[in-house]
């Protein structure tokens, strides 16, 4: 049976992915920090901070949704303590329909599974830190269907995109646009 905190995480991130402008104030501490592979090249300390981190997650999720026909998330391990919740989630992305992460064309019947390890830390009932890790190269290699040379070419194509994004931060943290206004 899913715990109250686990449900809180699920509903919070559903709200983040939906672009709910109230979610940051209600569910995250003002000094919230996000450390993950995507944030690594986007700020001097490798982490995204405060509401900007939430906007980034919204943008990342929209990027995935815009490239895959279906993305499913499933909890496969969950452990909880007083102040922390640790999860392993399996992400299954399928039916790619656009260029993605340096790959020009992925087979339309492709299905890629990735196990993502996430540690959430809580303070005063709100999320104050998220640490996130997965086998990023493995994800590329899976999209290249095991062909490491193809994965290497995609990584080289991906480089200018990441460098442009990094440059947009002008030496500071890359800033993401505010959520769309509520209708």
């Amino acid at each position, binding site marked *: 049976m899913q715990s109250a905190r686990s449900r809180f995480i699920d509903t919070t991130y559903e709200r983040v992915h939906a672009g709910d402008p109230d979610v940051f104030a209600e569910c995250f501490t003002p000094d919230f920090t996000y450390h*993950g*592979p995507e944030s*690594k*090249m986007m700020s001097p300390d490798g982490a995204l901070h405060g509401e900007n981190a939430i906007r980034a997650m919204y943008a990342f999720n929209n990027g995935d949704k815009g490239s895959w026909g279906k993305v499913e998330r499933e909890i496969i*391990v969950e*452990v*909880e*303590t*007083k*102040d*922390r919740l*640790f999860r*392993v989630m399996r992400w299954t992305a399928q039916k790619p329909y656009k260029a993605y992460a340096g790959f020009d064309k992925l087979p339309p019947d492709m299905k890629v599974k990735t*196990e*993502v*390890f996430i*540690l959430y830390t809580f303070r005063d009932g709100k999320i104050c830190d998220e*640490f996130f*890790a*997965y*086998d*990023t*190269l*493995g994800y*590329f*290699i899976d999209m290249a269907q095991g*062909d*490491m*040379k193809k*994965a*290497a*070419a*995609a*990584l*080289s194509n*991906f*480089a200018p995109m*990441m*460098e442009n994004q990094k440059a947009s931060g002008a030496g500071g943290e890359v800033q993401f646009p505010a959520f769309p206004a509520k209708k």
Partner: protein
Amino acid sequence: MVSEKPIKENSTVGKTIVKAKNIGSLTRFVLDAWDNAYNGTPGVFQKYFTPDFKMTGPETKMVSQEPDGSLRGKPSIQSYHDMNHGDAQAWGKVVSECVWSLEADNTVVRIMRWTSSKPRGSYAGLENIPKDRVVTINGVFIDKLRNGKIYDMFWAYDTMSFLVDIAGGDMKAAGKALGKMGEMMEAVKKAQAEGKTMPMP
């Protein structure tokens, strides 16, 4: 029962883990198991691991013959030993720290931080790595125990950042290195299929 331990434990690869205070008994068992596996202690497999032990992580996925990307049984421990010794040969110093762990029932979750410095030249398809390069990476490990022994170990870390950091932030160089690493991994996979082990690149 759940216990959580903030830990700062240093282990220089090749040396015994410095005993630390404030560490849970299961975490201690797991760290000892992997330290002995690293050191190639005779009898380590029988003492710490179940016969059906399997381990799954980025490195095993590249060379495994199994559909789930795992390595299994005693040969997997030999591979662990070999791949870590490959790292130790490529870097003058590798410090591994268990920075946080959590014990729940028969599961240990730990965050390990590796700091590699003093590269000796080439590593993971990259050549002429500057001697002053220092690379730090955090990985998450889950060890599951049955009847007092580890039956499953599963880990993940941001492998791409690791490669990009070794390349000094140059993603194109990292891409080229990945291409070269592909050829090396194919050789390891072939050796695995023939029942041999060889150090992973």
